[in-house]
């Protein structure tokens, strides 16, 4: 009987259509989520995953379609409607108030009891209570601006959980986190399920989907396939459904004879902040034709090091020699002109200007090159030609270069930034957490590009919190722990993952958190 399908499912989205201008984001999409399950939505960049859940959360409105919650047809017109139906959503992008403390971010915003006087103590008690319940230990008094990206994501999740929603939607909750933190989140999803909640989460990482999801919906080009029961699917099958093609395997081994002359030399780099030593004794050399992987968790100093290397911060001591020139105190323009490119982790504030147009974002690193301008004037024709080329490379050729960059989806934006830096043709390209928001196909293309640079005698540095993310291309790993290089591994094809993880957490001490 038809009625039963409506009763069986906690959430049922039927024949949903959504258009953004010319672009159709959802075509006849369906989502069927059983009560008290963990439901994963997987798919390529801009496949429509976020749009689908944003409709459920009342942030976007669908053009056509039906939504049924617990067997009742509902209309969701706003985020408030959605909240009333017991739906809470954790967003992909962080929206915390940086100057507020963790506790303030959790409770002071949207207090339901305006007559009660808000005391620091009460805020702290409430915050501690909810953190204990979900087994997250953060200091409720630390300012959000001082937290790592991973910790910020935790606060964001807690903020939704405190409203006790029955249905919890998480848009890429683990994309910012390192493995251990991600494990935390996955464990939490399971405990939420135990409490009787229904969980929907979007993820790029098929391994974690296979680990926790009960059912999976695959999205491709705005269409949905599924739901599939996890036990009847393999990772390979999912991958094929997402992309319609097989994964290509890479065989790369470190071959010292193929590397060239020294290109970068780091000598005793050190960074202090308010009397605390955050980075110390960092020394290594990098040769042409080498891909160097840098691993480390949130506070290991990796991010700090990357920023110093590119010139976003000035070190307290030590030297950076690039192509024989001391660039320790050179500004970023000089570094770029010498041939260094950078893909930062914070793509929405540092890597791009969301309020600027797409072309303004694309030409930033070539604005003074003959590709784009005479010495003073910009050449509009060349700019449009160049931007179109970049957009085509990113697979979004239909975008209008005059639109603001914020109209791009997270994945497209990341691809745009990566493409821009690669096309700047640097001799050394630094990637900070580049896989962020990339689907597997884009990640594979990125690795191809890294190998191409390597073969052309250029060098790549890539930082990551996932030790096996770039293991198939990296020649050598440096591992950071507590502001120092704790160990180094040559990638001879037989790397012992356990040893890497040990080095990352520091052999003796336990990881914080």
């Amino acid at each position: 009987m038809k009625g039963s399908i409506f009763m069986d499912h906690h959430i049922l989205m039927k024949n949903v259509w959504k258009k953004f201008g010319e672009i159709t984001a959802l075509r006849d999409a369906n989502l069927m989520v059983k009560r008290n399950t963990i439901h994963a939505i997987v798919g390529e960049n801009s496949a429509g995953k976020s749009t689908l859940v944003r409709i459920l959360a009342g942030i976007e409105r669908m053009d056509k379609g039906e939504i049924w919650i617990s067997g009742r047809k509902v209309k969701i017109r706003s985020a408030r409607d959605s909240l009333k139906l017991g739906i809470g959503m954790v967003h992909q992008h962080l929206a915390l108030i940086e100057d507020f403390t963790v506790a303030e971010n959790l409770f002071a915003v949207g207090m339901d009891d305006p007559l009660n006087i808000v005391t620091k103590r009460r805020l702290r008690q409430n915050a501690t209570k909810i953190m204990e319940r979900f087994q997250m230990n953060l200091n409720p008094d630390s300012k959000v601006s001082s937290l790592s990206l991973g910790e910020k994501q935790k606060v964001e999740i807690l903020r939704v959980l405190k409203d006790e929603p029955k249905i919890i939607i998480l848009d890429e909750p683990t994309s910012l986190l390192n493995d251990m933190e991600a494990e935390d989140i996955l464990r939490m999803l399971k405990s939420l399920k135990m409490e009787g909640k229904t969980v929907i989460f979007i993820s790029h990482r098929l391994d974690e989907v296979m680990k926790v999801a009960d059912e999976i919906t695959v999205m491709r080009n705005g269409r949905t396939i599924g739901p599939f029961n996890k036990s009847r699917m393999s990772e390979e099958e999912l991958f094929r459904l997402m992309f319609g093609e097989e994964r290509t395997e890479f065989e790369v081994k470190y071959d010292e004879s193929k590397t060239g002359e020294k290109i970068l030399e780091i000598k005793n780099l050190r960074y202090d902040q308010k009397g605390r030593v955050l980075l110390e004794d960092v020394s290594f050399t990098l040769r042409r034709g080498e891909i160097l992987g840098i691993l480390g968790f949130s506070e290991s100093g990796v991010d700090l090091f990357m920023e110093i290397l590119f010139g976003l911060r000035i070190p307290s001591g030590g030297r950076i020699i690039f192509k024989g020139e001391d660039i320790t105190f050179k500004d970023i323009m000089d570094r770029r002109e010498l041939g260094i490119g950078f893909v930062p982790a914070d793509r929405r504030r540092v890597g791009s200007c969301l309020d600027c147009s797409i072309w303004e974002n694309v030409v930033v690193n070539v604005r003074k090159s003959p590709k784009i301008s005479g010495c003073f004037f910009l050449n509009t024709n060349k700019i449009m030609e160049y931007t179109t080329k970049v957009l085509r490379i990113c697979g979004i050729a239909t975008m209008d270069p005059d639109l603001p960059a914020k109209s791009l989806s997270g994945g497209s934006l990341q691809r745009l930034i990566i493409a821009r830096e690669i096309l700047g043709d640097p001799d050394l390209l630094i990637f900070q957490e580049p896989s962020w928001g990339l689907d597997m196909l884009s990640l594979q293309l990125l690795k191809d590009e890294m190998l191409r640079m390597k073969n052309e005698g250029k060098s790549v540095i890539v930082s990551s919190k996932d030790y096996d993310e770039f293991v198939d291309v990296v020649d050598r790993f440096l591992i950071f722990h507590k502001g120092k290089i704790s160990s180094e591994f040559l990638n001879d094809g037989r790397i012992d993952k356990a040893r890497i993880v040990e080095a990352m957490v520091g052999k003796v001490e336990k990881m914080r958190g």
Partner: protein
Amino acid sequence: MRRGKEFLRTLGIICLSLIFAIVVISIVSEDPISSLKAFFLGPFTNLYFFGNMLTLSIPLMFTGLGFSAGFVSGYFNLGLEGQVYFSSLVATILGLQLGENNPYLFILILPVLSFVVGGSVSMISGMLKIKHGISEVISSFLIGIILIHLANSLIEGPLLDENSPISATPYLPKDLSFPNFEAFGNLHLGILFAFCSILIMDVVLRRSVLGYEMKLVGKNELFSRYGGVKVERILMISAFLSGGFAGMAGTVDILGIHHRMVRGFSYGYGWNGIAVALISRNRPLFIIPASIFFAFLEVGSQMASIFGDMTPELSKMIQAVVFYLVTAESIFRFFKGRRR
């Protein structure tokens, strides 16, 4: 499409302010019809009035341009008023001292000089912002006020022309003044200076690497830094241009109309310049119609007071309404942008 929306909103603000004018005139005036007619049509009845309207818009074009030259890079120059006043005093002094022998050369030198003076004053605030993190909103405003008082004390003191019934300096040498377009009332060569400045800024902002960098710094400082833009330098350039154009506003007015420094001659140029810049939404070309609109309010009110029974202060009321509306709207937009 977004531009169209912005344009409509601006049009809405202008219409609201004009409706306000109609309401005020209708309530206050004994003979609303003739007052309204004088207000709306007066400035267009003959070339003389029309020319005076254009003349009045010249300093506003400069101050408007000055404000937006800073604003695109996020440099909020509230010292326009002081920069206008002080630079024109410096130019006047120089003109009085040295202008006798080479008047035609000094017609060119004085605007440039006042540009440099205004720009340098504004760069002080830029420097304070960069080196010490002092908000330029406060420092430029305070420095501006100090300069106004300093200039006033000079005008009332050593520079005062004893024979003049008003507080003013002696007249500049006779040939040291802009040629004037007789048929158009007071309209003088300064308008060409204004058009040229606006055109140059327009090209710089839309077509040059410098303009690109200025806009980038205004929109996202972190990204600019990452992109290799020398943010401090761009801020200083913006501050200089901002104060520079403001500095020219006063001198051009003096060379064109007053031919000497009169106490308080520039009253309100700076503030109206901010409103002009906000209405034109930082697109230099739109500064021309925006300043003419402001000048129209001024001349229209004068007409309504001559040919009707209104007081010239009407213009101030309407300008205040425009000012409130555009600033409210900008502030609203600013916070909306922040919340994202």
